[in-house]
C-alpha cells in the first residue's frame, strides 16, 4: 500500500494538527481498549507456571494493555505483594510501554507499516531476554533488585 507521509510537503502547522488528531484518536482507543483488560488477565500471572512462560504472559499482557505508563504501577505493586519476581515485573513494565496497538498505528502513519512490525518483534525478543536475565540475577546469582 502506498502511504502518504506527513513529512513530505506538509507545513509544520499542518503536521502538528495531524499529530493532534492522531494522538486524540489514539488516547480514545487506548482508553476504550483498556476497559476490556480485566483483573482475571492479571490474575493469570499469579498461577504457578514456569518463569519463561510467566515472562511471556507478562509481556503479552503489557503489550495489550494500552494507556499511559503510570496506570500500570498499581498493578506492579500488587504483583510484587503477591510475591511475583522482579523478572516478571520488569517484563510487564517494559512490555507495556515499548510498543502498543494504538502507537503502532501512529508509527505506521509516520514511517510505513514495516517500522512498527519490526520494532514490535525486536522489542518482544529483547524484553523476553531482559526478563530471563533478571530472573537469572535474582534467582541464581541472588541479587535483590526489589
Amino acid at each position, binding site marked *: 500500500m502506498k502511504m502518504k507521509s506527513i513529512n513530505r510537503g506538509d507545513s509544520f502547522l499542518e503536521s502538528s494538527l495531524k499529530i493532534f488528531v492522531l494522538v486524540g*484518536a489514539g488516547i480514545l*482507543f487506548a482508553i476504550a481498549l483498556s*476497559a476490556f483488560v480485566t483483573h482475571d488477565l492479571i490474575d493469570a500471572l499469579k498461577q504457578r507456571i514456569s518463569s519463561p512462560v510467566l515472562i511471556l504472559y507478562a509481556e503479552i499482557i503489557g503489550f495489550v494493555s494500552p494507556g499511559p505508563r503510570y496506570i500500570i504501577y498499581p498493578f506492579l505493586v500488587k504483583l510484587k505483594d503477591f510475591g511475583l519476581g522482579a523478572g516478571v515485573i*520488569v517484563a510487564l513494565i517494559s512490555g507495556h510501554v*515499548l510498543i502498543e496497538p494504538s502507537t503502532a498505528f501512529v508509527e505506521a502513519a509516520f514511517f510505513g507499516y*514495516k517500522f512498527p512490525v519490526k520494532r514490535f518483534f*525486536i522489542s518482544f525478543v529483547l524484553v523476553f531476554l531482559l526478563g530471563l536475565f533478571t530472573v537469572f540475577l535474582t534467582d541464581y546469582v541472588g541479587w535483590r533488585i*526489589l
Partner: protein
Amino acid sequence: MKRLLLLLRNLLESTENRIGFFLLLASGILFLISPQKVGLALRENVGMAINILLLTIVAVIISAAVERFVKAEFVERYFHGNRRRHLLYATVLGILTPGPIYAIYPIVFSLKRKGVPNHVVVSYITGQTIIGPARIPFEVGLLGVKFFIYRVILSVIIGFLAGFLYNLSSKVLPDRL
C-alpha cells in the same frame, strides 16, 4: 449532504486522518460492545487524556524548537550515519526526554525530518518509552531505588540493542524510502 460527503472525502485523503478515523471507529465499536465498561473507563480517564494532550502541546513546542534551533550539522554529527555510538546518544536522549509515549511523536517526526535514520529513531523511542524522568517518582517510591537504577542500566543496553537489531533487520526487510 453532498457537501458533507465531499468534506469527509477530502479529510480522508490523508493517511494520518484515515488512521485517526479508523481509531475513532474502533473506539466506537468497543463502546457498542460494552457501553458500561468503556463509558466508565472514559469517565475515569478524562483528566489523564487532557494531561496527555497538554503534554503533547509541550512536545510540539519542543519539536518546533528542535526544528528551529537544531542545526543540520548537529544532527549530522550526533545522529546521522551508521555509527553505533549514535544509537547510544539517541537512547540517552530518549531516556532524558519527558512526556508520555504519544507526546514524543512530534519530536520523533522532527528528528526524522532532519534526516535521522530509522534505526537511530528506534533507539530514541525505545529509550524514551522504556524509562523516563516522569517515572522516577513512581518507580523509586513504589519499587525502590535499586529497581530504578537497575532499569536505567538495562534501558541503555536495550535502547542500543533495539536500534542495532532494527538496522540488521532492515537489511532483510528494508523500510519504505
